[in-house]
């Protein structure tokens, strides 16, 4: 039997990607760092490191520690700030034939609005991914994204101030993620991405100190995949807007699990450190799986769980 090259085109509401493979925020720098290792235009999209209005220098070290099949990071959302991104990174990113998604976060709800406004009309930024897992300064450092009401307010604020598709990225550190998902859907989010890292910690038994300068960090990598997959499955049944799934995806087989439970696209995070070519390999692996299984459009797989 003959199959033409499978159609990997992915429609995420208003956002069209050439394939469903996206690199996750914080694990792919500003994209350009991977140029020597990955054919960037083979990717569906690149999500850049979380941007704040002003540059942020981040948490005191140590900032990362390896755990069983995972890692904890407490980077503290260090980034060069929106201005430097627009001036130093975006012009070069624009030359690459792929979608660029700006991941944004604020310390107050207004800051989200200001970021959205500042990115309004900016050419070469194809969507916003709103990180609501960061600490809310007004609420004593609790994450915005654990309260459906606040998550909805952040979403509204961004939607009101942008002309771009809005992806809201959910935190897994909640009792019922579908409540937050429905809230941000109701507030106008075009797309939901999940999951961000799960809060964890590690201790050095010789010094009896936390292994991270910040005590707590976010767990990512293969260890969290079962939890991520469960949450994507739950959210896919709770909302109508498209989903981007992530959490521990190391290869195309992991990516397929997320598509099968209902994600239209996936993000590759920690795998970019372990195997810098991981994102491109996932694209190739998905394509081959489609050919081998007689799948003509990748969309046929989405939500195909029996």
């Amino acid at each position, binding site marked *: 039997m003959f199959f033409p090259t499978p159609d990997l085109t992915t429609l995420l509401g208003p956002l069209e990607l050439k394939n469903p493979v996206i690199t996750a925020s914080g694990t792919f720098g500003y994209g350009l760092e991977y140029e020597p290792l990955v054919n960037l235009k083979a990717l569906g999209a690149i999500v850049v490191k979380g941007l704040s209005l002003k540059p942020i220098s981040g948490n005191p070290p140590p900032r990362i520690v390896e755990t069983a099949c995972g890692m904890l990071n407490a980077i503290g959302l260090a980034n060069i700030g929106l201005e430097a991104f627009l001036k130093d990174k975006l012009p070069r990113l624009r030359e690459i034939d792929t979608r660029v998604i700006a991941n944004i976060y604020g310390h107050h709800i207004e800051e989200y609005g200001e970021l959205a406004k500042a990115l309004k009309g900016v050419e070469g930024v194809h969507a916003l991914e709103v990180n609501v897992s960061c600490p809310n300064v007004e609420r004593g450092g609790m994450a915005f994204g654990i309260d459906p009401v606040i998550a909805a307010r952040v979403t509204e604020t961004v939607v009101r101030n942008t002309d771009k598709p809005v992806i809201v990225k959910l935190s897994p550190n909640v009792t019922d993620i579908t409540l937050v998902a429905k809230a941000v859907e109701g507030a106008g989010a075009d797309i939901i991405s999940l999951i961000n890292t799960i809060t964890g910690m590690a201790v050095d038994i010789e010094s009896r100190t936390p292994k991270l300068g910040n005590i707590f960090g976010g767990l990512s990598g293969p260890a969290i995949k079962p939890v991520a997959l469960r949450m994507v499955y739950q959210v896919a049944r709770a909302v109508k807007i498209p989903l981007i799934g992530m959490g521990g995806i190391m290869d195309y087989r992991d990516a397929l699990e997320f598509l099968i439970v209902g994600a239209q696209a996936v993000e590759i995070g920690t795998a970019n*450190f372990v195997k810098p070519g991981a994102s491109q390999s996932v694209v190739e692996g998905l394509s081959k799986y489609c050919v081998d299984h007689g799948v003509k459009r990748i969309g046929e797989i989405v939500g195909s769980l029996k």
Partner: protein
Amino acid sequence: MIKKGDDKAMIDGDAEILFNHQVNHDTWLLGLKRSEPAVTMKPGQFVMIRVRSGMDPLLRRPFSVCAVEKDHFKVLYRRVGKGTEIMTQAKPGENFQVLGPLGEGFVLPEEERLPVLVGGGIGVAPLFFLARLLYRRNLEFMMGFRSAGDIIPFDELRLPNHRWSVSTDDGTAGHAGFVTDLLLLYLDKNRGLPLSLFACGPRPMLKKTAETAITYGIPCQVSLESAMACGFGVCQGCAVKTAPQESSAYHYVCRNGPVFPAEAIDWEAL
């Protein structure tokens, strides 16, 4: 001063293990095949090695380049945990996935300054490479180990005929005490001589060396270690606090370093 690693030469791929033999009770010398390392790898640079496929251990491990030959390079490593334990079991003919060369290496010393290399423990590894590169010049190489049994049999590494001296913490070989004692003795004896310091080793040793260099007004480059996830400036995990006069609060060991001028680092915070 923020430097930025040159990624032009960075490649990721399988490297064949040419040899992997034990040189003392806890140290191994590993030879990895790669075409033209002598051209692309500089002393002080490092590579990220995936010690086995599979997901535990998950992250690659950083190792300094210890020597380069035409078609391969060497890594001198100490068995300290599960990653390095697994490495000791690798056999010639097998492969490691290797990313590199990475980071900013040592800036070579000016002609008029005598290079003084100060290494502690496995920290001697990148200094061996530097010493080989400076084989035409006079230099002073000081190494500190915990005990006689920990001394790296560096003759095997075909070092040029440099002056070297050894200290051991327990006095079982060479000078009894720290390698920084050797340094202080040397500085006292050679006041006025224009020197250039190069140091790699445990943090307390680096701190002492850096503070000494700053006090004596001697240019000093230190090679730092830090936990790393990516190795090329992406994850921002390898931050070290910078000295107050620096323009940013943190440097990234993998990309702005691992080699830094002593003045760039906040030694109090380290």
